[in-house]
């Protein structure tokens, strides 16, 4: 089943490729329709998913036995939400790409290949296979930015590539090292996640490998100070590229930290809690502060991603039930809201051919529907309770407090700053009296509403009934916590224990 999920986009890409280049008006609609197939399958998998720990829909086929590489796929509560999110965002991203007029066929093919890579990376339970998918995503995204991006696209694409590749090299080395170590300990090489999780690593080796994985994923997330590729990539990428970059690719970083760093290197993770948490919170505040003064709407949303992803990293390394659940669900939430914000910025750009905040203004008067959607997603992003962003961020900060109290408090400052940068931007873009081209700004078309509506529905659904995901997430995050506690001396603090320590007071 998961094999079919991964291969579906590839088949879809081949079908699109089979349509002659001359029939360019067909490529995009065909791509959208075909990408509904993986979405349907993902929805079916979601439906069939049991709320228990452990991998489900497991596929385990030997691939290259001498090296212990296998076509190993599986899905648990940590990857399932990401699979659904990916399958959902691809048709939306394609549907939003009507502004792409050159080489449409190649664009659609690359996007579908990208989808295959993303889905594969989320369901791979073999490290070699994961690496293959992880790299396979890099190439289509490189071209999407480099070919269909705006003015500085070459620079941005190259920067994106070099950064990510640098991380990838570190990760590849670590993966090979682990296989080698496995072979020296058991006599047979293996790249299976379940095998490598039981390695007997020296402390030094574990820390080194942790660091290599952490850097590779930190680039992806991105964690401060490795974030500077992101604003450039986002600003230059076409709308679909930005949506998938923010919605899915960044999540591979946080997903990887949770899936691989916590599981493979529990002791090193526990030791690194403070440094990772601190970097995360620096990202939360720094990203938000820098976002405030960005003159370009897309860059502003990009920096807001740096801030929001910081919450997720904090939640991962705070290592409590609530914080981990919050981190996983925030992975989805950020994909929905930031994906939607990039869509909306793209819709503004399609009409006004500018993203400069100073050139926009009064758009609520001329485009009230677009303004309404934008404001809705703005508040989802700010973390308004009742919408999805709140559930994730609240679980993260409340859950992080028992283990990382000072960092949790600092992260909460990000909540103030989010209101500052987003509402100020909203005020400048949408409030006031529209002048010039802003006054004749056409409102949303039915196609655009259809793209945004599912995102709005999910933002509300997760905001008000997050259990639709949390029920399925919780057993898996608990399993991760149990495993960390089993092999380290770390214990999830019980309520009431820590508070007395740092706030003095007589009984």
């Amino acid at each position, binding site marked *: 089943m998961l094999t079919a999920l991964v291969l579906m986009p590839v088949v879809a890409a081949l079908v699109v490729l089979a349509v002659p280049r001359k029939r360019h008006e067909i490529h995009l609609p065909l791509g959208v329709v075909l990408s509904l197939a993986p979405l349907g399958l993902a929805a079916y998998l979601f439906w069939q998913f049991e709320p228990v720990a452990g991998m489900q829909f497991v596929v385990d086929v030997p691939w290259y036995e001498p090296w212990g590489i296998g076509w190993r796929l599986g899905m648990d509560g940590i990857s399932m939400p990401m699979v659904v999110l990916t399958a959902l965002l691809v048709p939306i991203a394609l549907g939003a790409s009507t502004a792409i007029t050159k080489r449409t066929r190649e664009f659609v093919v690359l996007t579908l290949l990208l989808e295959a890579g993303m889905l594969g990376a989320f369901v791979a339970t073999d490290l070699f296979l994961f690496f293959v998918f992880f790299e396979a995503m890099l190439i289509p995204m490189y071209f999407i930015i480099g070919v269909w991006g705006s003015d500085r696209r070459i620079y941005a694409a190259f920067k994106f590539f070099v950064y990510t590749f640098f991380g990838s090299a570190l990760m590849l080395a670590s993966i090979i*090292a682990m296989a080698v170590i496995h072979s020296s300990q058991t006599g047979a090489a293996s790249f299976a996640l379940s095998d490598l999780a039981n390695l007997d690593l020296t402390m030094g080796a574990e820390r080194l490998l942790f660091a290599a994985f952490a850097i590779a994923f930190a680039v992806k997330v991105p964690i401060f100070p490795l974030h500077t590729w992101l604003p450039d990539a986002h600003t230059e990428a076409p709308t679909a590229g930005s949506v998938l970059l923010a919605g899915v690719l960044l999540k591979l970083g946080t997903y990887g930290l949770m899936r691989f760093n916590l599981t493979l290197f529990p002791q090193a993770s526990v030791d690194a809690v403070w440094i990772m948490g601190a970097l995360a919170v620096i990202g939360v505040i720094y990203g938000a502060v820098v976002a405030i003064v960005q003159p370009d709407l897309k860059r502003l949303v990009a920096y807001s991603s740096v801030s929001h992803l910081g919450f997720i990293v904090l939640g991962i390394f705070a290592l409590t039930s609530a914080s981990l659940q919050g981190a996983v669900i925030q992975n989805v939430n950020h994909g929905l809201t930031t994906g939607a914000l990039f869509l909306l910025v793209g819709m503004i750009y399609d009409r006004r051919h500018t993203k400069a905040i100073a050139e926009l203004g009064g758009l609520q008067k001329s485009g009230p529907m677009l303004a309404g959607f934008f404001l809705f997603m703005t*508040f989802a992003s700010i973390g308004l309770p009742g919408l999805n962003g709140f559930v994730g961020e609240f679980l993260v*900060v409340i859950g992080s407090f028992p283990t990382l109290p000072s960092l949790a408090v600092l992260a*909460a400052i990000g*909540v103030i700053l989010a209101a500052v940068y987003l509402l100020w931007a909203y005020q400048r873009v949408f409030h006031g009296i529209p002048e010039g081209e802003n006054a004749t700004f056409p409102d949303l078309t039915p196609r655009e509403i259809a793209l945004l509506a599912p995102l709005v529905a999910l933002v509300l659904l997760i905001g008000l009934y997050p*259990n639709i995901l949390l029920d399925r997430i919780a057993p898996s995050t608990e399993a991760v916590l149990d495993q960390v506690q089993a092999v380290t001396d770390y214990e999830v603090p019980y*309520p009431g224990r820590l508070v007395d320590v740092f706030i003095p007071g007589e009984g």
Partner: protein
Amino acid sequence: MTDLAIDLLWLVILLPLAGALFLHFVGQRLPEPMAGLLASAAIGLSFLVGLVGAFPFFQGDGEATTILLWSWMPAIGANLELLWDPLSALMTLIVTGVGFLIHVFAIGYMHGDERFGRFFVNLNLFAASMLTLVLAGNYAMLFLGWELVGLCSYLLIGFWFTRDSAAGAAKKAFVVNRIGDFGMMVALMLVFAAFGTLSYAGIFDRAGEVLTTGVATAIGLLFLLAAAGKSAQIPLYVWLPDAMEGPTPVSALIHAATMVTAGVYLVARSAAIFELSPTAQVTVATIGAATALWAASIAIAQYDIKKVLAYSTISQLGYMFMAVGATAYVAGIFHLMTHAFFKALLFLGAGSVIHAMSDEQDMRKMGGLLSKMPVTGVTMGIATLAIAGVPPLAGFWSKDEILGSLFARGGWYGVLWVVGLLTAAMTAFYMTRQWVMVFWGEPRWSEDAHPHESPGMMTLPLIALAALTVVGGFVNTPFRFTLEHFLEPVFEGVSMQHPPEGWGMFALMAGISVFAGLVGLAAAGLAYRRPMEDWAEFEQGLQPVWGWWEQAYRVDDFYNVTVVQPGKKAAEAAAFSVDLPVIDGAVNGVGRLARGIGERVRVLQTGQVRNYAALLFAGAIALVVWLAVTGA
């Protein structure tokens, strides 16, 4: 019937919510009054459900009930659940009752606005949010309502968004409130860390055994920060005067009668936590007293009819904080209720005046309006007397109970009692000044203004609120402690402050506070019944103090210089002096270095990317080898 109503209690929230949704998707196309009538009907029905559900509490045999709707964030003990007890019932009745009257008023007031339907969407959404806040059965859901009312406030302050001042005020309100929300979030972190849940049921009964004094103080002070944002107390009150950019019914509903009292409600609801920390109590009361006095002094020198009321609201909220800080919870909630009546009335009256004067808000251009709009004038006059503390109007009873409680608690609270008395005199002064400037003396309006009484849709709510202002105080008098008994079960486990006992003491206390009110009333009446030149001279005679008051001590400028501008500079520095040149530069520098090395070692290959790949691959192999040797 009553059981049914409690089973159907979620309707209290759902009705206005459904109203908002229906109007949003369908109602925008309805002809004008229909949207307003539907919205009013939704909240009116909500009031009726609440009324029937509250019936057992009136009879004294009701029990607090928790109604689970569905689970929300079980990991932190936060579900969507309603707590129906006398406190939430009373708040529900205030919100829906006063809310209904304001909805009806708005049908007349918003007549002709091109976004008439949209206005009622937001108004209904606000009601649903506020009811979520007061009916919540845990802190997370309270926070849900807390933020949603903030959203509605944002939307309604900025309702006329093409005005820059309205857009700015909306943003300011939300951002300043977010500072308070930071306090709320940290408080909830502490609560969760201490109790392992955010549910009231798991907190209040165990607070005494779980919390140390230090933690209780921390939570209490953080709640105070949150409350200072929402309820416009020092130092976060600055958003409320600007919020007057919103249409006047909004000011009445959100920025006077309901939303801004959420902070008072929060403290009263958390009585079990404040119980453990005298420090938190005294801080709440002191902030309240300081705010009451500070805002009252500013209100004295305002000329905008709504600004007077805005500062007056801040000041009266300070009164409520004094009460709940002194653990006189019933007195605080009592004043919350009476204030909702008379302040809503004052705002709606001001709206009626503004409406009649074709959007003029400067009181210097009014005067002598009583004969032109007698209903507005008389009802506002009643409210003015009520807020001034003239017996037997509602404001007298509730204000007196607060002052009496402060006096009875003594010590530092005795000092606050004096502040309260001084504020009472000032309140009587500025309110009388307002009424006289608007309704008495020589007409000062221009020739093309044609003031007229507002239509029945607007005056009927005024009359209803005036009636409540007259009789509302009798629910809790030294003769009959009805409200006290009503709320008793809520505050069962906590100690509560009461006014001094005995008729002699009551008479003395009442005498002193009524005297203070009458002094203010008489002074303003004498000064402002004279022609404008005379009182303008009187005001100038108070310079430079008058100028400070008139400019609200220039606190906005102060914040601008100390917080806003430095913050902006810091953000610019971070973005343009750090992020681009330093951090991005450093990484690019490393890249250049690598390229430099790459060029040196370039022998066979030519492509840049391939150089990188080769270099990195070599490094990777080296690492692997090293690891395989040492690590395994």
